[in-house]
Each structure stands twice: as C-alpha cells, then as structure tokens.
C-alpha cells in the first residue's frame, strides 16, 4: 500500500517528478566512469563529416553545378561559370553599388562619378568632383526632421546628436554606417513584408517559416560570416547581407503578428465593401497593421546598428570598423567614443522611427505649398547656403576644410579622459577587482565548468529529456533529445558543454537580477514605467558595446564575458517581469488586500504565480541574449563553441562548414531550452486558466 502511495505522489506532483529526475541524474553522474571508449560517457563523433559536406556543397555550388557560358570581356571568349556564382556575384555588385552611391553622395569626392563613368574619362577630367554634404547641413537636417516628427525635444535630440558626432570627428564613419543602414533597412523591409504577407495568406508557408526563423534568430551572428565570405566575398555588401539575414526575421514576425491582430470583422467589412484581393491587401490589411509593421521597421534599424561591428569583420566600413580597430589595439577611449556614436545614432533613429509610427496624417489641413513643405524648403536652403559657404572658404583653410568635415584626428576628443579614468579605476581598484575576479574564477566558474565537463552524456540526456517530458509529453522529450543527439554525435560536445555552462550561469544570474529588479520597481505604475524606459534605453545599445567596459575591468577572462552577458540579458528578464506583474488583475490585488496579506505574501502568493508564465517568456529571451553574448565573447577569447566559430573566420576556405555547423549547434541549444520553457509556461497558463 505504501509503495502505491509513492507512485501516486510521483504521478501527480511535478516537484516530486523533478526530484526523482535530479536523483537519477546525480546517480548517473557519479556512476558512469569517465573513459573514452564508454559510450555512456561520450558518444562517438559519427557526424564528423558534416562541416566537410557543407563545404563541398558550397564549393560545388560556386564552381561546378549548373554551368553557364559567360562572355569574358578581358579574354574575349566564353567561359564556363556556375550559375550560382554568377547569381551571388550579381547580388554582391548590386548591393555594393547601392551602398557606394549613397555613401559617396553624402561624403563627396570623385568616387561617385567613378561609379557612373569609366576611369579613363575621369582621369582626363580630374576637376570633376561631387561636393560633400557639409556636416552643418546634416545637423540642421537632423534637427528639422526631429522637429517635424515630434516637436522641439526630438529636434534637439537629432540636432545635438549630429553636432556631437561631427565635432568629435566621427562624421565620416557615421555617414558610412548610416549609408549602410539606409540601404540595408529597405531591403529587410521589403523582404520581411513580402514573406510576412505570404505567411499570413498561406498557413502552410507560415508553418514552414517558423522553424527557419527560429534558427535564424537564435544562431550567433558570427556563424553567418564565414559562409557569407565564401559566397559573396569581403566588403560592405557582405556586411549588408549578414545584416539582412539577422534583421529580416523580426520584420517577418512583426508583419504576421500585425496582420493576425486585425479583427476578422475588419477583413469582412473590407470584403462586404466589395474589395478585390489586391484592394483588400493594400487598402485594408496593410494599413490596419501599420503600427506593428512600423515597429518591425524600428527593430530592423536597431538590428542593423547592432550588427555594424560584426559586419566590419567581413569588410563593412564605418563606426563598427573603427570600434573594432580601437578594441584590437586596446584603445578604450577611442572605442568608447565610437561606441557612443553608434548608441547616439541608434537612439536618434529609434526615436525618429517610433515618432513616425505614431504620427497620424491630417487629411483636412488646408495648407499652402510653402506651409506644407516648409521644413523641406528650409533644409534645401541650408544645404545650398552651407555648401556655398564651405566652397568659398576653401581657400581660407589650408589642407582641411573644416566646414565640410572634421576629420577624426582633428575632432574634439575625450578619449584621453576616458583612458585616464580607466587607468585610475584600474590602479585604485586593481586589488579588489582582481581578487573578485580571481575568486569568481577559481571558486565559482572554474568548479562549475569542471562540473559541466564531468557530466556523462547519458546524464545530460536524462536531465534534458526528463525535464522536457515532465513539462510536456513524450513528443517534447523526443524533440529535445533529437536536437541534443545531433550535437553529441559531433566532435564538439565538450565545447558545447562549455557554452552551456557559460550560458546557464548568465541565464540564472540575469533572470534573478531581472525578476528582483522588476519585482521591486514594477509594483508601482510609475516605477514600472521608469524601469521599462531604462530597458528601452539599454536595448538600443548594440550588443558589442557591453563588452568595452568589462574587458577593461576584468581583462580577457570568462568573468568579462559573463558580466557582459548578464547585463545584456537582464534587460528582457526585467521587461517581462514588469509586464507579468502588470498583468495581475486589480480584483486579485483587492482580494489580497482584503485578506490582509503582507507585501511579501502578496509577492509570493499572488503576483509571482500569476506573472509566472510571462516571466518565463522573459527567461526564454534571456537564453537567446546570453548565448549571443557568450558567443560574441569569443572575440575576446573564450574557449567554447564561439572560439571555433570565430577561428573559422580566418579559414575562409574550409571555415564555412565549421561555422555553420557550430552556429546551428548553438541555435539548437537555445531552441531546446525554448521548447522546455515554453511548454512549462503554457502548462502554467492552462493551470491558471489564462490560456
């Protein structure tokens, strides 16, 4: 009878099931001997060949398959070339052309003319030169645009931001970055909108898109770079393509989400008004989903800026490249200044696009031509006037005309102060920072890493699949098991374990931070709002910027990467906690108050249980954010999967396969956690009657 009772408890109580699972896990952990020939300890690397196979596919696609006869003007003969290579070439050239045109239009010089006419003609007419857009005119333009979008405050943000960038000598790289964004964003927009609409119209397409988007969004950005170099070569266009891959998925998701949110009655009203299909799409569906679609555009721009540093690894010019060079030569001040410029551009573009999304058109204003276009007219005038002034004063300056551009070595700088500050912090706190670092490494991180590496493969599988089974069903367990098996059968399982160790440490710390912060400040309306705007602000930082300060405080160690990852990943955890607490109905609060709960009881008995499913979705985001940063950490030297992905960058020949495979591994880890956490959240939602 007693036995039966135990079975009953385990069957019905999730905590008991988890307890049992952990017991089995620990038993396996300590019982399985560590030996290379024991398949319960490590699986054989049967899938070693995958990277090679990918490389072969890429090589064959580029040089062997579907040959076309192509006229070679230099050798004046037909040559056999693979169709795919011609395709990638055309894409590269097209993108490069667009980026160059925009950039040179803004920065001036003779390259812009070079694009349109041949070299010989240009050499004969060397007086020809396109004038640059003076930074003064750009500043006025940024102010006017902000002013028109949302009043004087946004105008000042734009104007002062542009002024800062120009005066501190970052005008040229900023314009380079901006032209990169200006070309990449519309492409992401068109691609995202088209696929989003297609997914909305066809359920099958949406089902097929989901897993692809999941992988694309969870794969570390680095993993794309090597295949892109292999396919498209180095240059601005390669950076642009990498960015398109990263930034299009959220646009697709936003489009589908926005279209799905339209009430079915509105669609019916369109149909009953006698809309044809194109009329329904362009006059009803897309305008009704306008806000979500424009939020997608905002996300795309933010992703573009987050990618500028990473894109510089494949040859994109601009602030990212400057930041990378400064970091490589350990110039923290210069790096911080470039980073600040990226943040400024990000904040300005973020606020501008959000204001644009919220701006409603007034159809019935009765304005004259001049009133309607007064900002445009002022801007046009300022370009003409500043250009003339700059042109005339050419003789006044020798060598450098400061009215066009303030070059980086002549601009104001506070890099010395930052460097001095870092040195001061370093000298003053060296002992305490170092001992903290040492403590963390030797007492916490080191043992944790060893514990992960000492985990027999069968124990890992039991834990992951068991957890998936408890929160879901046998199907969930098999999905998780299948994805892990893919990694376990490769030769990179140990590296993956290190990635998991860093990831899980960052996720746990970030989730705790986020839940605590969110719980403390999110309980009042005002506190929640302030905290959310902090989250907005931190989220506009490109992920790379987080690495700058920590490297200088903690050197190149796991600690630096983990702290950056924790800070970065705390943002979504905090955000979702605040949202979760907000979702607790007022009536429940009142019921609690009338039952006489203390503040702590309210938190444990009412707020946390109701907010739990939402908080778990935040934890889900935390996983993706943490893994991104951990892989990014490879840049400054860690020894997980990221390091090999990063290493593959220098092996363009055979690196593509390795980078893609490992990228998919990281993505699989994230998706495994996602499957478990999402099932858990759904389960709780059902239990609470929220679903």
């Amino acid at each position, binding site marked *: 009878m007693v036995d039966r009772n135990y079975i009953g408890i385990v069957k019905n109580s999730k905590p008991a099931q988890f307890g049992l699972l952990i017991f089995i896990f620990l038993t396996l952990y300590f019982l399985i001997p560590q030996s290379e020939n024991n398949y319960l300890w490590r699986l054989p690397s049967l899938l070693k060949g995958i990277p090679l196979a990918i490389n072969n596919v890429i090589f064959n696609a580029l040089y062997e398959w579907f040959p076309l006869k192509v006229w070679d003007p230099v050798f004046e003969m037909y040559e056999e070339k693979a169709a795919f290579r011609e395709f990638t070439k055309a894409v590269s050239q097209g993108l490069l052309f667009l980026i160059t045109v925009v950039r040179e239009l803004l920065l001036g010089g003779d390259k812009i003319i070079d694009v349109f006419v041949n070299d010989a003609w240009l050499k004969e007419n060397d007086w020809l030169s396109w004038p640059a857009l003076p930074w003064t005119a750009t500043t006025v333009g940024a102010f006017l645009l902000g002013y028109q979008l949302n009043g004087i405050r946004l105008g000042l943000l734009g104007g002062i931001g542009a002024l800062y960038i120009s005066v501190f000598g970052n005008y040229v790289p900023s314009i380079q970055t901006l032209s990169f964004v200006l070309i990449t964003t519309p492409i992401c927009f068109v691609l995202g909108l088209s696929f989003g609409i297609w997914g909305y119209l066809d359920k099958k397409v949406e089902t097929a898109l989901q897993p692809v988007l999941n992988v694309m969004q969870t794969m570390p950005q680095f993993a794309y770079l090597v295949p892109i170099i292999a396919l498209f070569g180095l240059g601005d266009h390669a950076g642009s393509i990498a960015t398109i891959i990263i930034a299009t998925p959220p646009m697709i998701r936003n489009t589908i989400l926005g279209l799905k949110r339209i009430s079915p009655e509105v669609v*019916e*009203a369109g149909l009953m008004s006698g809309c044809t299909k194109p009329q329904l799409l362009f006059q009803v569906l897309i305008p009704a989903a306008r806000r979500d679609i424009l939020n997608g555009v905002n996300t795309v721009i933010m992703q573009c800026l987050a990618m500028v540093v990473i894109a510089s690894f494949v040859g994109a010019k601009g602030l990212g490249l400057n930041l990378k060079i400064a970091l490589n030569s350990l110039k923290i001040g210069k790096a911080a200044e470039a980073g600040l410029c990226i943040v400024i551009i990000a904040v300005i573009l973020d606020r501008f696009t959000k204001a644009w999304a919220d701006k409603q058109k007034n159809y019935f204003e009765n304005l004259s031509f001049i009133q309607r276009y007064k900002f445009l007219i002022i801007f046009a005038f300022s370009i003409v006037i500043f250009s003339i002034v700059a042109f005339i004063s050419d003789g006044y300056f020798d060598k450098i005309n400061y009215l066009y551009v303030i070059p980086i070595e002549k601009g104001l700088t506070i890099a010395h102060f930052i460097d001095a500050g870092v040195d001061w912090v370093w000298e003053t706190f060296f002992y305490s920072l170092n001992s903290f670092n040492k403590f963390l490494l030797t007492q916490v991180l080191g043992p944790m890493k060893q514990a992960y590496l000492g985990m027999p493969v069968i124990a890992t599988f039991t834990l992951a699949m068991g957890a998936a089974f408890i929160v879901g069903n046998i199907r969930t367990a098999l999905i998780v098991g299948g994805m892990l098996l893919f990694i376990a059968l490769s030769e990179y399982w140990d590296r993956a374990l290190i990635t998991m160790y860093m990831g899980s440490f960052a996720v746990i710390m970030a989730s705790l931070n986020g839940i605590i912060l969110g719980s403390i400040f999110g309980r009042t309306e005002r506190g929640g709002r302030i905290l959310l705007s902090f989250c907005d602000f931190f989220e506009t930082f490109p992920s790379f910027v987080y690495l700058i300060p920590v490297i200088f405080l903690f050197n190149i160690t796991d600690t630096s990467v983990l702290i950056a990852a924790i800070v970065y990943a705390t943002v979504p955890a905090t955000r979702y906690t605040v949202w979760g607490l907000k979702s607790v109905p007022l009536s429940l609060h009142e019921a609690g108050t009338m039952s006489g709960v203390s503040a702590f009881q309210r938190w444990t008995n009412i707020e946390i249980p109701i907010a739990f499913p939402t908080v778990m979705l935040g934890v889900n985001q935390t996983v993706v954010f943490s893994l991104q940063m951990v892989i990014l950490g490879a840049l400054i030297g860690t020894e997980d999967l990221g390091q090999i992905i990063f290493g593959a960058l220098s092996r363009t020949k055979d690196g593509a396969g390795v980078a893609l495979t490992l990228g998919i591994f990281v993505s699989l880890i994230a998706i495994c956690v996602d499957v478990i956490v999402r099932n858990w959240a759904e389960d709780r939602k059902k239990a609470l009657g929220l679903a």
Partner: protein
Amino acid sequence: MSPTISCNSVYKIFGPNANRLLSESNGSVDAKKFQEAGCIVGVNNASFDVNKGEMLVVMGLSGSGKSTLLRCISRLTDATAGKILIDGDDICLMNNKQLVELRREKMGMVFQNFALLPHKTVIENIAFPLQVKGISTDNSMYKALEMVELVGLKGRENYFPRELSGGQQQRVGIARSLAVEPDIWFLDEPFSALDPLIRKEMQDEFLRLQGVLNKTIMFVTHDFDEALRLADRIAIMKDGIIEQLDTPGNIVLNPATDYVKKFTEDVPREKVLRIESIMDAQDPNASDTLEVSKDDIIETVAEKILNSKEIIKVTDPKDKSIVGSINPSKVIKVLFGG
C-alpha cells in the same frame, strides 16, 4: 414576385470531412454524432425566404449559428450544402468577380464591433465602399457627406474612429453599409456592444432609417426584446436549427417548442400583440365614437379601450374599413392574465 433572399436546405459544417459526413447523413444531421467525428454543425438545414422590404430578425444565443447563417448568405463563408438565391441567382455558384460585383451593387453589412478601418477618418470610412468601386474622390466624398448627415454625425467627418463613442462608431458603420445604396442590408448584432440606453436610441434611429429606406433586411441578435421590437418576422435558432420562424405575435402566442417557450414566457403580451390577434368578429353593438387599428400594439391603445368601457370597432388602416371589434374584457385578460 420572387423573394429577395431564398435559402433552401442550407448547411454549414465546420471541420475536416464535413462534405463526406454530410452526404452520408442524407440530410438528417445529428449535431452530437458530428461532434464525435470532429465536426461542428453551424447551420443545420435552414430553409426560408425573405421578401422585398421585409425585415427578418434571426434570434439565438451565442453558438446557435445565427451569425454563421448570415455569413453564408453574404458568402463570407461558403455554405457546405444548399442553395442560397439572391434575386434568383445562386450566390454559392458565383465566381469571385461576380461576388465582388454583387457586394458592390446590392449588399451592405453592419458588424457587432463596428469594424471601422482604424487608419481612415469617419468620412473616409464611409466613402471606402464607393472608392473601391472606382467612383471619383469628389463624387464619393459628396455621397459620403450625405450619409454623414443621414446618420446624424455632421461635424465629425474628420474624426478618427478611436475618437468616437461606441454609438457614434456604429453610426459610421451604418452609414458605410448604406453608402452604395444596397437593396439588401445585413446587420450582425449591430447594437449588442452598446450600453442599454444607447442601444434603445440606436434601435429608434434604425426604425426611422428603415421607415425612410425600406430595405430588405436580415438582422441578427441575441436579444429577444430587440427582435420583438424590430422584426416583421423572427427566426429563432438553436444548435444550428431554426426552431420557429413566424411573426412576433404568433411566436409569443404559439411557441412551437419548449425552447422558444422559455423566451416567450416572461414577455409582456401587451407589448408584443396587436389588436388583430385578440379581436372578435364585427359587432353591431360597437361604439360609434371610437375605433382602433388592427395593427396597433395592445399596450399603446389599452388606456383608450379600457376608459371607454364599450365594445370598440377595429379598422384596417389601409382602407379604413371595419374588420372586427374589440371587447375591453379581452384587453384586461391580456394585461392581467386569467
């Protein structure tokens, strides 16, 4: 004259294998059996006609299939089986082009949650059906302004839907559905999302409009009182089946099923019944000074009849001829029971 809308054995069944299951069932559909097979029965063998200028109110609780029936007739969903004739043409057989044409020329629809386009102003929403038809901006705006006046929203042309109250939003919805001057007017619970006082006001407004426009109307509601107030005839639906289709008076006096009876039990008769339903044959003793019309609702003339204490003549409002008589005792019976 053929009816404007004519439904013949219309079925709508949701779920996979709906067609196969329906053809196997030979027309007698058992909702429970279908549910076991994974299908949900929306409309079950609906047959009825709506004549020109008539208002048919479809009444039922949520899940009874009343909105589904309306959507089959406007072909927002395809009926699984059956014939639906609009002015003699089977709408189920129309191709997309014919359907768009039909909606542009003959149909207008009002929705429960207003379904206004959030990015368009009042005037743009109302002009929308005209503009998709290809009418020039000037003409469609002119027509839309007329509609704005008709529904009493003058001065609010440039408001966005979100700036209007629920009642005002529904006025826009009504104006939009009338902009193309349709013959057939579908209303899907148009006043259900409104507060009781506003609802009453909108019902009055609706009756006024119908008095002017005289459209063929299908009106869906879950509110039995609303149905009684507005309808020429009422169709009461339950689980996809039309339980009874008759005039309000007949439904109240002779409920066909126990289900219908539940609705009619508490209805005050005097508010529904007309003199016609309780009058006697012509009586030579009837008073000469007073008369009532056979179409009068009892409640409205009760005071007059009871005060007179005599037998009163009943006339036909069309030709003023005398068609019967009414005894005050009959009225007392209706008012106080017994």
